């Protein structure tokens, strides 16, 4: 009979390995051109989800039964360098998974929603050309979510974070024969890459401060002080820098202001992926990161104030924009974002009233479940509305909110336009960041072509950079 520690270790490994197995099976069979049938794909998805969920639930039961609140599954040094010549230099890259009061609920939520959506998608995607591609990307997403949920070090988190980002962007572009989904997929990827860069820099700064990227060391969490009772060991400018970088990364991932523009664009993907990615799990990953580093917010009140401001701004912004949306997916998206804003605000407030962190966690779990249901129900709801309108022979009546009538006409018009243009956020980013960047490098490219042509002594038409001939 294995002891408790060994049991935790084995169960923890199963939790992680189950989705990795699914990803390997779907990925390798696709690479060697031996794709699984729809039925086999569905069976593997359901089977691995059930195994992973059962192992995660078993861990929860054991933790409750033995009153253990912090279980660490340490896979040891993935990479380590111990410097012999210069004693002060060393490098450790540790893969560590932590099961605590924060990660276990989020992990269970991930498994429940992913499993449900897999079962839904097996039918929904039936005979779709990209069936196999959808489930391969889905499996990458599940691995990313599980790894990010359980991450005990910032490198582990970064691994999961990147997998979630890649699968999300590729699923937004799933219907790739049309240009719009592809353009939107690229937009999502750009925002993710920028926020990922912030997370990477945070990882590097943590390494610089502690010699490793262990959250436990940064946040002071251990079996005696499980989340959220830890006390951040970093302070002052270093803690502020790491905190701001993490907030920036979380803002990109959770589509907080000013990155909110990508969220409605992400709805171009298939409904099942929209449901779990942008309605439920992916969009909450930023909030989850903030919850994970909550002891840091407590140690540096400025960070908590920044988080509150960000959350409130996002909630107000999303409410306003969501009020004028005319399609169901966009309306749900902004409703979702408004709730994410409130959750983020709660996390910030938790720095002053720690109990609120639990409120934020429960809010996150409940909201994710509700929103997944709404997204999955959306297509049939539209059908129901259509049936209803056919039955009554006209449009269903819609009423504007009374509070809006209290505002002056000019302000209402301005707000309507502001909301319709989604706060001009995309326009702002396009005009002041993307546009100048692209223009600058196009100009440099043109100059390079001219200079190359001059060096080559040819009169090539530098204005038209099209390819001259094939090889």
């Amino acid at each position, binding site marked *: 009979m294995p002891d408790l520690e060994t049991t935790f270790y084995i169960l923890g490994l199963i939790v992680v390995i189950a989705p990795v197995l699914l990803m390997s099976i779907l990925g390798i069979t696709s690479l060697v051109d031996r794709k699984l049938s729809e039925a086999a794909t569905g069976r593997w998805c359901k089977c691995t989800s059930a195994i992973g969920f059962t192992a995660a639930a078993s861990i929860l039961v054991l933790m409750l039964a033995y009153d253990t609140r912090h279980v660490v599954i340490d896979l040891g040094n993935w990479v380590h360098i111990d*410097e012999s010549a210069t004693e002060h230099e060393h490098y450790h*890259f540790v893969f560590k998974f932590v099961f605590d009061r924060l990660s276990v609920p989020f992990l269970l939520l991930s498994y429940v929603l992913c499993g449900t959506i897999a079962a839904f998608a097996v039918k929904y995607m039936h005979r779709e050309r990209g069936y196999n591609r959808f489930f391969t990307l889905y499996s990458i997403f599940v691995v990313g979510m599980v790894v990010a949920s359980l991450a005990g070090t910032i490198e582990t988190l970064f691994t999961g974070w990147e997998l979630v980002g890649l699968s999300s962007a590729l699923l937004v572009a799933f219907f*790739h024969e049309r240009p719009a989904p592809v353009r939107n997929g690229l937009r999502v990827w750009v925002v993710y*890459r920028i926020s990922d860069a912030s997370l990477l820099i945070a990882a590097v700064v943590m390494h610089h401060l502690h010699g490793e990227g262990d959250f436990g060391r940064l946040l002071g969490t251990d079996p005696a002080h499980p989340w959220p009772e830890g006390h951040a060991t970093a302070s002052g400018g270093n803690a502020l820098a790491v905190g701001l970088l993490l907030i920036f990364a979380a803002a990109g991932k959770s589509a907080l202001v000013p990155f909110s523009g990508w969220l409605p664009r992400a709805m171009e993907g298939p409904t099942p992926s929209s449901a779990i990615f942008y309605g439920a799990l992916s969009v909450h990953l930023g909030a989850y990161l903030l919850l994970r580093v909550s002891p840091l917010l407590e140690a540096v009140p400025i960070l908590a104030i920044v988080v509150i401001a960000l959350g409130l701004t996002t909630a107000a912004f999303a409410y306003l924009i969501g009020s004028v949306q005319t399609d169901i997916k966009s309306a749900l998206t902004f409703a979702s974002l408004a709730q994410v804003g409130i959750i983020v605000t709660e996390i910030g407030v938790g720095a002053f009233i720690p109990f609120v962190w639990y409120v934020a966690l429960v809010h996150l779990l409940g909201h994710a479940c509700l929103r997944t249901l709404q997204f999955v129900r959306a297509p049939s709801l539209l059908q129901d509305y259509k049936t209803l309108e056919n039955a009554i022979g006209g449009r269903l009546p819609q009423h504007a909110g009374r509070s809006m009538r209290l505002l002056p006409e000019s302000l209402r018009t301005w707000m309507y336009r502001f909301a319709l243009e989604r706060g001009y956020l995309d326009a702002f980013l396009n005009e002041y960041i993307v546009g100048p960047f692209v223009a600058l490098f196009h100009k440099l490219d043109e100059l390079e072509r001219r200079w190359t042509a001059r060096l*080559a002594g040819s009169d090539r038409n530098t204005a038209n950079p099209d390819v001259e001939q094939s090889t």
Partner: protein
Amino acid sequence: MNDLLTLPWLEISILLPLVGALCTACVRGAIAASRWCLTFAGATLVCTLLMGLAAANGVSPTGDSPYSLSHQLLGSALFEIDDLSTPLLPLVALLHFLTVLATARTKMARVSFSGMLISESIRLALFASKSPWLLIVFLALNTVPAYIELVKRRRPTRVYVLHMALFLVLLISGWACASSGESALVDLAALLLLAAILVRSGTVPVHLWVPDLIENCSFGTALLFVTPITGVYAAVRLVLPFVPDWALQSISLFSLITAVYAAGMSVVQRDARRFFAYAFLSHASLILVGLELHTAISLTGALCLWISVALSVTGLGITLRAVEARFGRISLDRYHGLYDDSPALAVCFLLTGLGSVGFPGTLGFVAAELLVDGVINVNPYIGIVIALAAALNGIAIVRVFFLIFTGTRRVSAISLGITSRERFAVLTLAALILGGGLSPQFGVNSRHRAAESVLHHTGSDGLPHDPHETPTQTE
């Protein structure tokens, strides 16, 4: 087994492609030539692997064998390997083998297989050269095959010739000053060598030859010329041992600027080959950044990144070359919709592309982490710039993936899917990239030993060294 390992595998690895080139030149017909070339490239790969095995078993694969040609003729070994170069030779042989293997049948008539084997021999000799003048000779010879191909194809050569001539003049004069033993000439030597390395590595603003070569040369030749990153090898052997700190910092600064600039340029390119050129330049520059910071961790990161970039960028290049073989030169001003014709090529493109930008699970991830970790101890801002360059490169890879493989579906009368040879080539590289990423400790240990060896030979062990120490004194 030990008897087998005592054979002079290093010399055999260098001579075998030359023999192969002679045989291939005598063969009529492109397909037969490609088979001969593939056989010799494969045999060379096996020889380099045996050489690595011999080195791992403590058997000198250089000149101890009674069959060693250079030992018999010169009385000493002409070629040498150490911790740094031991894995680089199998790497170079593998890149050549896979590039030959993945050559499309429709393009075989235009490819000079004997030229490829001669180039392989020169590159193997280059990476097996430790003696400065011998290395300089092979660096010079290495520039010739690409020039011959440009001439044969009647493409403009001036940009390439100007840059390579400048590189060689700077290198030769720099090393002549350095080896004169005159302490007054040390700074001048450092400046000349620094400039030579910057030109050869395609550092901004002397980088124009890289996109020009990749645009005008055949993709295979250009790929094999740039991806082993010989400029870094020259830097390690000729510059790192003695140049003063200001020169190292200058290389680091120029490389950082190149990494970001080239990453930005790759984001806006409208031609797939130019995109490839800038993506390569950005990745290769990051290696130089780590190389010049003179700490064991950053140097280990740089050396790991070297292997990672060579594998993943070659994989990316082979994939692009396979796409070009089917659809001609790819412009990036519209969506091509090639996914349904070649889904495996799309996956391989993404896999190798993301491997090159250090995506988690790939060898590049560990390398980038090590590099940034080492760098940040010296200067945190460099770490931020590297992260920015990686972000831009990631954006560029996915943008090009979307442009090539998504869009309105093409309807093709014939199958344009990946061939088994191409699949083998790209999957081998992908397996190495992912295998190295999932189990990186072995590779990191090897590169760390090499880094310590390099630092040991600089006489610094990671500590500031005397900038006025001449190479003759060091030796």
